[in-house]
């Protein structure tokens, strides 16, 4: 069948099971939007900024496990996707980004709305393509989805010159992908599994440290089995939250480790004699000072990406493969290890250093809001966050019971991620409760997406932990820069005194966009207001005025080792 390029693209996307595109139109992609106009099988979500499209596609992918798709025009449309693509790349999220490009014959001539987007995105995509001929389009789409979703997942960009979209070609969708240069290794090496099991059997002080790889490979069940069958305690990275049911009453769960991790998780990792790293990459926010990280431990590292292994720390037993496949193999031959003295020690640390914060009767504590939210939603809502203090409080105090419920920009740390990501997640998971937890700083980075939620009837909820500061930067300035609060105030000051007026008024903003909006400032209002927000039959925003100078504790300062934590309440 002879079709035009736009139609070939749409038919190819449908073959890949795409049901939703997050997009924004513009000059060179008008022919494509014209084809989408009466396309019944693809839901086109019209965002209000291309960055929102990329984060929404990302949120869609994180919540559903499917490949997210975003679409923008050439030039500024494409460059506006860049932060969203980099965010997905750092967190290994499968995504296909489609960008318009100027007519092939004008590429390189500094044409109107021209940008070399394949050049710009080369270091932040798993792979990218500039389509040169309409007849290559179907094959490239097939390859793009294959590359994005297999191995270590990641974003793939396809740049589409206008003449490729309007040109005609025979449409034949390839049955399978043939790429001699790309063969991700999924099955682990048996010899390495044996070596790992040997180390586990010998260990006296082992700990499992797991990350986002558990979520991405769908290995939560296998992880739980590994922990329970061996009796080895586990700790999660921020990206791994939900991979093991969060319940600190479970003696084998130590919560999150790293910069804002629990004291006991960090102590346990620091003193361990064996670290079993599963789908995690020894990020600097996890290890603290690298030369003092787990200096007495041998390390087993399970990861699908060979470049992650021995990148930051030297590994004793590397196992390259898909986490789920590797764990399945290990489970065939795993036994309970006898490590009672170690478990007693870990319990002692746990008891002595329980997560806690100073309660208040007069001010709303952000941790309290998250505790209540966790309680009310039974730890099973989809929670997207922005980046900053609110993100860490949510990671610490929301008890994620299941994988794919925690959507947060871990690697890149992108403010502006949460609101559009929650929109994408809600589109993918219509029957689930989806809530953005935001700060009053980061919500403003993509606040225009409130309009997207309204215009497409996407029933998301937004909670702003509002302290009138860029809280995390303020916290660092308080602790390490003598309280010189440079460029972090988000309220109006006259002669260095707060006028008590917040800019903006988030309730008015919510209402202006068509959201239900409410502001609270007293602890006794919290539970009722959260319930009210959830019960409201449409998009709703709750502005919670919290204790202004609350800090995220405990904290491992940059450059310190994991035992040098400050601000624990012990």
């Amino acid at each position, binding site marked *: 069948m002879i079709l035009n390029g736009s139609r070939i693209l749409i038919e190819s996307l449908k073959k890949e099971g795409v049901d939703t595109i997050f997009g924004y139109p513009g000059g060179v992609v008008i022919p494509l939007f014209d084809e989408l106009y009466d396309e019944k099988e693809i839901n086109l979500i019209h965002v209000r900024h291309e960055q929102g499209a990329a984060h929404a596609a990302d949120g869609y992918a994180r919540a559903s496990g499917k490949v997210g798709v975003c679409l923008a025009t050439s030039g500024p449309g494409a460059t506006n996707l860049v932060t969203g693509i980099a965010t997905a790349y750092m967190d290994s999220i499968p995504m296909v980004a489609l960008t318009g490009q100027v007519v092939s014959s004008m590429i390189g001539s500094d044409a109107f709305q021209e940008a070399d987007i394949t*050049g710009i995105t*080369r*270091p932040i995509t798993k792979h990218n393509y500039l389509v040169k001929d309409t007849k290559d389009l179907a094959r490239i789409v097939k390859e793009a989805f294959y*590359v994005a979703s297999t191995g270590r997942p990641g974003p793939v960009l396809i740049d589409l010159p206008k003449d490729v979209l309007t040109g005609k070609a025979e449409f034949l969708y390839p049955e399978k992908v043939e790429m001699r*240069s*790309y063969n991700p290794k999924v099955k682990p090496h048996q010899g390495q599994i044996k070596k790992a099991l040997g180390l586990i059997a010998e260990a006296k002080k082992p700990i499992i440290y797991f990350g986002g790889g558990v979520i991405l490979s769908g290995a939560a069940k296998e992880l739980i089995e590994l922990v329970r069958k061996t009796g080895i305690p586990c700790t999660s990275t921020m990206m791994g939250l939900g991979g093991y049911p969060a319940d600190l009453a479970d003696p084998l769960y130590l919560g999150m480790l790293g910069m804002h991790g629990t004291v006991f998780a960090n102590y346990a990792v620091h003193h361990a004699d064996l670290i079993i790293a599963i789908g995690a990459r020894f990020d600097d926010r996890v290890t603290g000072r690298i030369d003092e990280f787990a200096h007495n431990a041998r390390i087993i590292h399970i990861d699908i990406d*060979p*470049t992650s292994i021995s990148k930051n720390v030297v590994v004793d037993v590397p196992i390259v493969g898909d986490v789920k496949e590797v764990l399945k193999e290990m489970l065939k031959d795993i036994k309970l290890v006898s490590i009672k003295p170690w478990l007693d020690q870990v319990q002692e640390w746990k008891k002595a250093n329980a997560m806690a914060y100073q309660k208040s009767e007069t001010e709303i504590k952000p941790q309290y809001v998250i505790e209540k939210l966790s309680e009310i939603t039974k730890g099973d809502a989809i929670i997207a966050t922005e980046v900053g203090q609110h993100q860490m409080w949510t990671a610490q105090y929301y008890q994620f019971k299941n994988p794919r419920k925690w959507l947060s920009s871990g690697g890149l740390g992108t403010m502006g991620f949460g609101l559009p990501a929650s929109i994408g997640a809600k589109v993918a998971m219509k029957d689930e409760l989806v809530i953005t937890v935001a700060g009053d700083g980061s919500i403003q980075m993509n606040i225009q997406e409130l309009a997207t939620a309204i215009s497409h009837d996407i029933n998301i909820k937004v909670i702003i932990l509002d302290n009138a500061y860029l809280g995390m930067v303020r916290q660092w300035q308080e602790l390490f820069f003598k309280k010189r609060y440079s460029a972090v105030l988000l309220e109006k000051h006259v002669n260095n005194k707060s006028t008590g007026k917040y800019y903006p008024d988030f309730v008015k903003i919510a209402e202006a966009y068509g959201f239900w909006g409410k502001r609270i400032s007293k602890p006794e209002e919290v539970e009722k207001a959260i319930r009210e927000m959830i019960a409201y039959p449409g998009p709703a925003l709750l502005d919670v005025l919290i204790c202004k100078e609350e800090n995220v504790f405990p904290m491992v300062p940059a450059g310190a080792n994991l035992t040098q934590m400050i601000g624990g309440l012990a």
Partner: protein
Amino acid sequence: MNYTLSVLVENHFGVLARVSGLFSARGFNISSLAVAETEDPTVSVMTIVVDGDERILDQVKKQLNKLIDVIKVKDLSEQDHLSRELALVKVGVDSQKRREIIEIADVFKGRVVDISHETITLELTGDTKKIDAVVDLLKAYGIKEMARTGKVALVRG
């Protein structure tokens, strides 16, 4: 320490940019890089000389393998291999000293490819050490310009 890698890549536009971009983004040092088609026109070979320690080399190899357009990475440092480089060296000498340069060229099996009133240009081939040695000798006469291809290499047998 220098390591020689022979990297087979898809002969697409943009592949060189992917490889060189990887080196700059990860902070790896390239000593030399030579690219050309192989006997199969869909495949190019890049001979890359990398400066670093074993840990860096390990990351370079893994990162190269991770690029979608890379078909195979061979570490020639681990194997018995042949390597050659070609250099064109323009030396500033007048007719009086010309004879000495021609003698140097003869000893090192180089060729004189151009002569002008003030210059003489030699073509040299050999492994990197040999070229370095000749260049060192010629420096005494004043090298006006020089172009080197960088190393190309093949495994023996």
